[in-house]
């Protein structure tokens, strides 16, 4: 039985909000007659007929399209947290359009749709391919999807940052404004939605069979074919929305959840009710945005507002989700084991020292490369050394945090980025920028640390709750990161010089690091390594699973809290320098593992050294690649890290 009353109520409120906005524009007696002829209409009438009216319809269409997309994705992947945002599809479409806008604007002459579709398709293909290696395990899918999405989004941001010229277009469009000025978007979206609705109706029965799981192919269903068709449909819907109005996040996640909460149980019901719920949800949001704008407030793009609902919703879903991923014995016998790790560690340390020395000596000037003479060496040492040291220390800390998280959760995809601390730190930074007229470096530092600490407290509290498994923890972290980035994009769409500061920092440049700051980071890295080494016994036992660890007498809750605090504070400090994304925390522990550091102590030390080396090389690359224009350190590290992530998951089980 589906409860209809809430839907009628929501429809009533949304309609009232729309009518209020429309009547403010033009009194009912002056409403233009159909068909609209702009040449005979007054300006307010044009605003109503070609602005307000299509806007109302677009809100319904976009909501319905995203609701349907989310519903079919959740059905086919049997995953209540799947939607175009969490699977990285929307970010893929966004990145494709951003890249086209900047590098080949001619491509966009034919409209954004083909470009967005290509980007969404690539992202979805990537995530599905990753998920297929793990039998579409829900948590792995969402983590892989969000990582792909985060990478795409960070690339979009970094590219935007490097091109002041197109900034306005990109930022505006990114945040999902529903403002319309003719009916062309309505026509395009309505056509796509109609075709996809028919497709979804045809696929509803095979989908129901697919929900039987393993039995589906025994019943004669072409499982792979149905999956491909359904995912293709969802991608097309999401890409069309992204092309038409930009990023409208989380409606695809919320709509099926609302449908289920309203009592839709069977697949067919959810497919039917979810688009309806999505349409009403987005209309309500848009109505509220118009209401606030009408009252003289700031104008928020509607797509940014939906993001504010999405984060908490994902958090709530996470807590209710059944997590059934068995602990993975990562690599098993396939990975080499070093019987004596010490010589290799010494070798790594030597390579690190050598790299630092070499990179201090070599540099670029306009017109070529130079190796410094003694005098210039003395001149540059005070600036190059802190920078390299800070980068190395940040890399080591991130790698340590990653190694701890991967061992603690027995999840090879865990990394500091998904803990949510980076997102919280960004939020703290942004708040200081927006609240203080001319913030000092110390103020920014305090804000960033405070932001990281708050998220840390939330994640820690979740970890202490009975029954909170490591997978849940990772999802909670991801939800918090998403919430942070939604708040950030809402702040950025307020649009003034302060937004620029946030964007600049998000890119994560290491240029401004002081000797004091570098020294502090180095000390922190050493302390973190010492603390982590003191915890090696726990880290050796935890990957065996909670049962074994508990049976061996490990106080699981306290141990987890201690490990989370260490990883979290470390990440917060490193984030200040590197920016929210780098993937070094993911990469370094993996490389260490593959190099044969199997035991915890060797693994931790090896990860730290490899992380430092990776970050130092990234820093060098970021400074030299586009000299004298310095790329953000985090971006350059991501450019190495993201392909590594893809390669890693693709070759698992291969």
């Amino acid at each position, binding site marked *: 039985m589906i409860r209809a009353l809430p839907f009628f109520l929501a429809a009533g409120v949304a309609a009232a909000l729309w009518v209020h906005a429309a009547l403010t524009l033009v009194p009912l007696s002056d409403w233009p007659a159909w068909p609209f002829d*702009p040449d005979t*209409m007054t*300006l*307010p009438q*044009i*605003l109503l007929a*070609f*602005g307000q009216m299509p806007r109302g319809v677009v809100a319904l269409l976009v909501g319905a399209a995203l609701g349907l997309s989310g519903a079919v994705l959740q059905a086919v992947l049997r995953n209540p947290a799947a939607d175009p945002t969490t699977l990285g599809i929307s970010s893929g479409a966004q990145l494709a359009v951003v890249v086209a*806008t900047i590098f080949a*604007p*001619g491509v*966009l*002459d034919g409209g*954004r749709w083909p470009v967005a579709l290509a980007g969404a398709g690539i992202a979805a293909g990537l995530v599905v391919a990753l998920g297929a290696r793990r039998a579409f395990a829900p948590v792995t899918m969402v983590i892989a999807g969000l990582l792909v999405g985060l990478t795409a989004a960070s690339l979009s941001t970094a590219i935007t*940052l490097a091109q*002041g*010229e*197109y*900034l306005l*277009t990109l*930022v*505006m*469009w990114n945040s999902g*404004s529903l*403002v319309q*000025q*003719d009916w062309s978007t309505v026509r395009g979206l309505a056509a796509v939605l109609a075709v996809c609705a028919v497709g979804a109706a045809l696929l509803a029965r095979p989908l129901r069979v697919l929900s039987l799981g393993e039995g589906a192919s025994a019943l004669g269903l072409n499982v792979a074919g149905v999956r491909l068709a359904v995912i293709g449909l969802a991608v097309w819907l999401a890409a069309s929305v992204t092309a038409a109005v930009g990023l409208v996040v989380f409606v695809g996640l919320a709509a099926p959840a609302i449908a289920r909460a309203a009592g839709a149980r069977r697949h067919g019901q959810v497919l039917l009710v979810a688009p309806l719920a999505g349409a009403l949800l987005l209309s309500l949001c848009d109505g509220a945005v118009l209401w606030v704008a009408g009252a003289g407030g700031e*104008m*928020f*793009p509607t797509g940014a507002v939906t993001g504010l609902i999405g984060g908490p919703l994902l958090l709530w879903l996470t807590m209710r989700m059944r997590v059934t991923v068995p602990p993975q014995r990562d690599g098993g016998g396939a990975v080499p084991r070093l019987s004596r790790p010490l010589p290799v560690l010494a070798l790594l340390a030597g390579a690190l020292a050598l790299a630092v020395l070499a990179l201090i000596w070599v540099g670029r*000037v*306009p*017109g*070529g490369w130079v190796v410094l003479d003694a005098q210039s060496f003395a*001149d540059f040492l005070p*600036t*190059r050394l802190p920078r390299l040291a800070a980068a190395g220390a940040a890399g080591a800390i991130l790698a340590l945090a990653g190694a701890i998280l991967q061992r603690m959760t027995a999840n090879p995809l865990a990394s500091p980025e998904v803990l949510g601390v980076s997102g919280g730190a960004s939020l703290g930074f942004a708040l200081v920028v927006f609240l203080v007229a*001319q913030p*000092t*470096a110390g103020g*920014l530092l305090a804000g960033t640390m405070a932001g990281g600490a708050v998220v840390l407290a939330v994640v820690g509290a979740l970890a202490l709750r009975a029954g909170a498994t490591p997978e849940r923890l990772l999802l909670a972290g991801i939800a918090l990161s998403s919430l942070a980035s939604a708040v950030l994009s809402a702040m*950025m*769409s*307020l*649009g*003034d*010089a*302060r*937004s*620029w*500061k946030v964007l*600049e920092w998000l890119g994560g*440049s290491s*240029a*401004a690091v*002081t000797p004091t700051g570098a020294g502090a980071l180095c000390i922190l890295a050493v302390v973190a390594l010492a603390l982590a080494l003191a915890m090696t016994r726990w880290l050796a036992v935890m990957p065996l699973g909670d049962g074994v660890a508990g049976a061996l007498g490990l106080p699981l809750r306290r141990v987890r809290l201690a490990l989370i605090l260490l990883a979290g504070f470390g990440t917060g400090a490193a984030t200040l320098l590197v920016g929210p994304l780098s993937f070094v925390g993911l990469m370094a522990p993996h490389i260490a593992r593959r190099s044969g550091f199997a035991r915890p102590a060797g693994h931790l030390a090896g990860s730290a050294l490899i992380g430092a080396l990776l970050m130092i090389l990234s820093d060098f690359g970021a400074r030299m690649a586009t*000299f*004298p*224009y*310095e790329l953000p350190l985090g971006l350059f590290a991501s450019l190495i890290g993201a392909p590594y992530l893809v390669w890693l998951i693709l070759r698992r089980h291969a």
Partner: protein
Amino acid sequence: MTRRRVLSLLAASFVAPRLALGAVPLRLAAVDWAMLETAIALGNTPVAACEVKGFRRDAVTPVLPPDIVDLGLRGAPNFELMQIVRPDLILSSPYYVRHLARMEPIAPVLTLPFFVPGEAPLPKAMAALTELGARIGADPAPALAAAEAEFAAARDRLAPVADRPVYLVNIGDSRHFRAFGADSLFGNVLERAGLTNAWADRTRFAFTASVPIEALAARPEARIVVIGAPPVQTEAELRRSVLWNHLPAVAERRLHRLPEISPFGGILAARRFATELVHALGAA
């Protein structure tokens, strides 16, 4: 700029500026574009500046000398290159306070405010001429007089079109624009030229003011002045847009286009805006 030239610059910098401060002009490095313009207006072109490529594209004039050293992004200046250039004074603005700790060891830093939310930037740009002039030993009077003369001339030339208010906008996409209000450089120059700004609101001036196109209909009698070229695909979208084409100013051909002008420039950007405004509106 060759490596040889850098090295000779480097060598020269050891000797020259430290011998006679009075005779040889100070070597300046500009991080902020408004400061860069102020220095050029005072007759001392900096030896290095940030985002030279972007300045040539977005500010166009003043034309920078070919051998000026590009210091990289304003948000992340290349401090090593700045050190090689060995400036006597670094020109900055409050946007770049977070670089202070890195710049101060290289050379003294002069930070002057141009753009403060809610405050008029043109008087600050004028004051900056005086302040920077005092610091580097240059007389600001000719530059100030030239600017005043330019604004006065613009006022005379634009008197016939002063009957209608003017929207100063920069088109972002086919649905949004950013408006230059009373706390923008362009808005100040518009007032000096005797015209009324149709945008009564405060500027959300930096890089995204999410103002929907329909807001341009609030003053139907106004002219619209578009500063800078819109993005490529936006031109086509605007041609198709019902709303845009029925805005009174567009339908009645009161739409004027200006070339790229730096919205965050100093006194020279203000003068360039005055010149181009007269050029575009003078014939109207």
